[in-house]
């Protein structure tokens, strides 16, 4: 079950974390990182992407793409959460666990 979590630091900055597979990270890790203001990661991901593009042949590129797609998609959100909690960010809001019948508005 996907769950949104919102973290805050002492300076009042917010960071959103979603659980589960991230399609955006799978398709483009730099874009995913930019959305979360992880600029260093965005640059590194882009550099790695360029290196893969230049350094590998066609078949190896395809394998690398599949591995990146699955790996980044599956682990990006978990790594972000780990990074936030390790960096002293505190949970300020979260999505409640789903109930059988949420009241309609």
């Amino acid at each position, binding site marked *: 079950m996907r769950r949104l979590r919102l973290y805050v630091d*002492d300076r009042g900055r*917010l960071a959103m974390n979603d659980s589960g597979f991230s399609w955006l990270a799978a398709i483009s890790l730099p874009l995913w990182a930019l959305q979360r203001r992880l600029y260093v990661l965005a640059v590194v991901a*882009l550099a790695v992407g360029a290196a893969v593009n*230049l350094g590998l042949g066609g078949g190896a590129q395809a394998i690398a793409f599949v591995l990146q797609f699955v790996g980044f998609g599956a682990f990006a959100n978990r790594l972000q959460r780990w990074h936030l909690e390790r960096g002293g960010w505190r*949970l*300020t*809001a979260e*999505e409640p666990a789903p109930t059988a019948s949420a*009241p309609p*508005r």
Partner: protein
Amino acid sequence: MRDLACLRDGVVAAPSLGDAFGWIVGLVLLALAAAASVSPIVRGRYRARVARLMALEQVLPRPAAWWQRILRGADRAAPAAFATAAWGVAELRARAALVERRLTRATLVAWAAFAIFAAAVAGVLGQSQAVVMRLADGAVAALFAVGPVLANLPPRWSRHALSLGALALAAGAALGTAIDPAGLDSIGDIVLGAAVLAVIYVTLLHRSLRGQVLPVFVVTVGTMLVLFVPVLLFEGRLRACDAAGEAADPRALLVVVLLLPALWVGFRVLAGVLWLGERGWYSDVSLPSFVALGVGALAWVTGAPAVETNQVSATVAALPVLWLAVTALAYAIALGRRPPDASAPQLLMLRVFAQRSRQHAMLDSIQQRWRCVGPVHQIGGPDLAALNVDLDECALYLTGRLHERFLPEAASATQLQSLLRTRADREGRFAINEVFCFNTAWRHTVEQLMHLSDAVVLDLRGFTGHRRGTAYEIGLLGHAALLARVVAIGDVYTNWRDVEALLHDAGADAAQLVRFDEREGIDALFDRLLAVAAR
């Protein structure tokens, strides 16, 4: 590792002005097509994100630094508009009429300027300079502009912008074909041009798409220009690499290297547009019309004989910008001076979160009309999100920061007031304030909004007692003795017995509630609300 020396050694042929103009036009139209294609997806994702954020529960209060940051950019002068003031119905009606007349006058003047410009530049574009042909050119341009013009007029006209605009566009295409000296040979071009303009119409003027299309378009144009213009400029060197067979795909490498700077530039352009909007330079209604006119002008110049025969001068390349500038200047001059800030009655819209377009249409009509009188407040929800999403909200969504817009907990009355935009923009329209709340904040926030507002429209179409959120609001209105400010809209599905029971439980007299049947129409509803707001 491949040798990229070919990029350094290749021959660079300077592109002609015609080539550069063609690239830019192509990229702009491509960006519009891309924005139009993804906007329905963005709309759906935006709605889903709003719905998920609304369900969040706060578990830890925000630090003071967060409150200071979100209040820093708020409208400091807003509380002045909450000062006690008195208005009569006649005065409010006169105010609305004045704003509508001013907008109508300015829009028609801008329309005339747009059409006259087309006739005036016929010679520069290599078109016939005969007076009759110039008039015909002006008429075609005027027909093209019907949609954007209608969209900027008061609601009784703007709701027909798409249908009447499409008819006018077809008429313009027919007239353009008839007066084209190339005759039947250019029918394909005319059809292509009409198709491009039709896409512009639908995406930029569609009520529930334009809020998403514009920001995506602005970002995409900025990004694509930074990304692809260097590739096109270095085409000669890239071809040298192709010929040498050195680098597998130097174009892809260039795109990868430029991707992040290009995205940064795209979002900076959007930030610049937002900056202008925050200072009241345009309203969320007029901007799509101007963008549609701008893209139309670009398409017009591109299809002109001077460009088709590759005789593009600097004047011709600058014409679309000049054309739009003249139109905007005419609009600004016709609008005249900004009206002085005055206290304005505020409308609160409470409703069942329904997904029926008929319900949305009536609420949209009433909020568009009320904007000529005063600001409109509402709790942001997924139902009206697509209609009311503005550039700022969509930009926040695209950058993954939409949660910044949500109140996490009960804000003080002063904090809430400072977050609401209560001043009219330069065109005289007041804002629609969507107040987004987490689940832990909306009850207190809606109560405060009830006390701040002079009139409350309570949309109970489709209401039954199991709609807990709306039931809570009805009880709140009863408890706070605010029924005198309320006009409740009902339809055949409204369970009025449940409403009466809720008011009875709240200790209020249900007879005080002004009921309104949706079949009475929007004009009658507007009059009722004016009467309620008048003191």
